[in-house]
């Protein structure tokens, strides 16, 4: 065996074993492992399972004025219906996937548990929801993630997956 044979065998073995290790960890543990996997070299092969993607998710926000009155919830434009050409060309899937990735992190927290406000997923959602212009009377904004879950019988269930704190405008 040449040195390159040995190095290749070693690298591939470690990489493959690492891939096996990260497959079935709980979500938060996977996040911790990912802290060291900066280049995303350890793939996750659990597509759409064990929790199938039976919901549409929406990042929504509402403004609160100086009198504490809340405006209506408004969606951020991230998810759109796919055209037939998406079998070949589907750039919009990346925007929806960004939201999906962020949701996987935020939904891991219980209702009574505060997520890290300085975590990248929270800051991403906050930035995306703070970008749209606000009315002059609004002084704070709150974002949320809503979901429409589809049932086999054709029905739909609307729910809030995550609700943020209120954040003041700069």
């Amino acid at each position: 065996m040449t040195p390159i044979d040995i190095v290749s065998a070693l690298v591939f073995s470690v990489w493959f074993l690492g891939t096996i290790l990260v497959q079935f960890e709980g979500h938060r543990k996977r996040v911790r492992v990912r802290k060291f996997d900066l280049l995303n070299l350890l793939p996750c092969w659990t597509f759409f399972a064990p929790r199938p993607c039976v919901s549409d998710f929406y990042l929504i926000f509402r403004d609160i004025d100086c009198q504490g009155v809340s405006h209506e919830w408004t969606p951020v434009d991230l998810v759109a219906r796919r055209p037939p050409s998406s079998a070949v060309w589907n750039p919009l899937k990346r925007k929806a996937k960004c939201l999906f990735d962020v949701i996987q992190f935020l939904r891991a927290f219980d209702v009574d548990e505060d997520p890290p406000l300085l975590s990248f997923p929270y800051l991403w959602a906050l930035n995306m929801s703070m970008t749209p212009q606000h009315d002059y009377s609004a002084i704070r904004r709150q974002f949320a993630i809503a979901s429409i879950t589809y049932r086999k019988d054709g029905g739909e269930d609307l729910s809030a997956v995550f609700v943020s704190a209120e954040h003041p405008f700069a």
Partner: protein
Amino acid sequence: MASGIGFQAGIATGNLAWECWTACIVAVSTGISSLELIALRSEFINGVYAEEIVRSRPRSWLFRRREELRCRIFRPDVIYTVVVGRLFASIALIILGSLGHISGLVLVVLAVSGMFINYRNLIGGDGSDQMSLLIVIALIPAVFFPNDRLVQVLCAWFIALQSALSYLVAGIAKVASLQWRSGECLLPILRTTAYGHPGVALRLGTIEGIDRAISWATIVFEISFPLVLFAPVPMVVCVLVLGVAFHGMNALLMGLNCFFWAFVAAYPAILFIRHV
């Protein structure tokens, strides 16, 4: 089979049959994904990949003392240049691979650009990006050392094992889910906006038991895919043909266009190890 002529000017020639096929197919995946990112270039400025957003995450150990470098790599013009370079590298690989040559340098460009995009964007990537990057990196030793038979075999086995693992894990994860075992999640998935096809969901909803049948067909296919590593060659070919059809349907119904090319790119490596 692997009696390569040699490595000249960064281009490997000779008997690199499976590598050429794999490189051509995976380059289609990387090319399409690069074009899609170019189409979303406004997102690098004030969208999901905006500089101010991706810079908000904690500094990694890589950039602890290199803040200026870290700020520079998140700039929109930098990521745009990388993506355009990745597109040209993909086109070059398709052309060279179809002529029976592979450039190790082009593979290195694809590997480095893929890792850079992963690091910079952090979110929004999917399994096709992961499989493409994995295959590109695994091809590099095979191309740089075309006369080393063992390296050829190691690279092919690594790609084949990762491919088999991907299907096996996906299948096991589905078996672990009551919704998948009962099939009750199939129609709701097809009704979603991001991954659904309402017309197909409507038609399938009228057929009793079809959702359970499709769920179990998917589970059985995925869990049995690792058989390609040691089953008789005719069975291997059948399974791979099913795999092509499976990913084709996923592209049509769910918009998983790059998955088709990224995962089918591993099939030449599987055929190679079955002939060794």
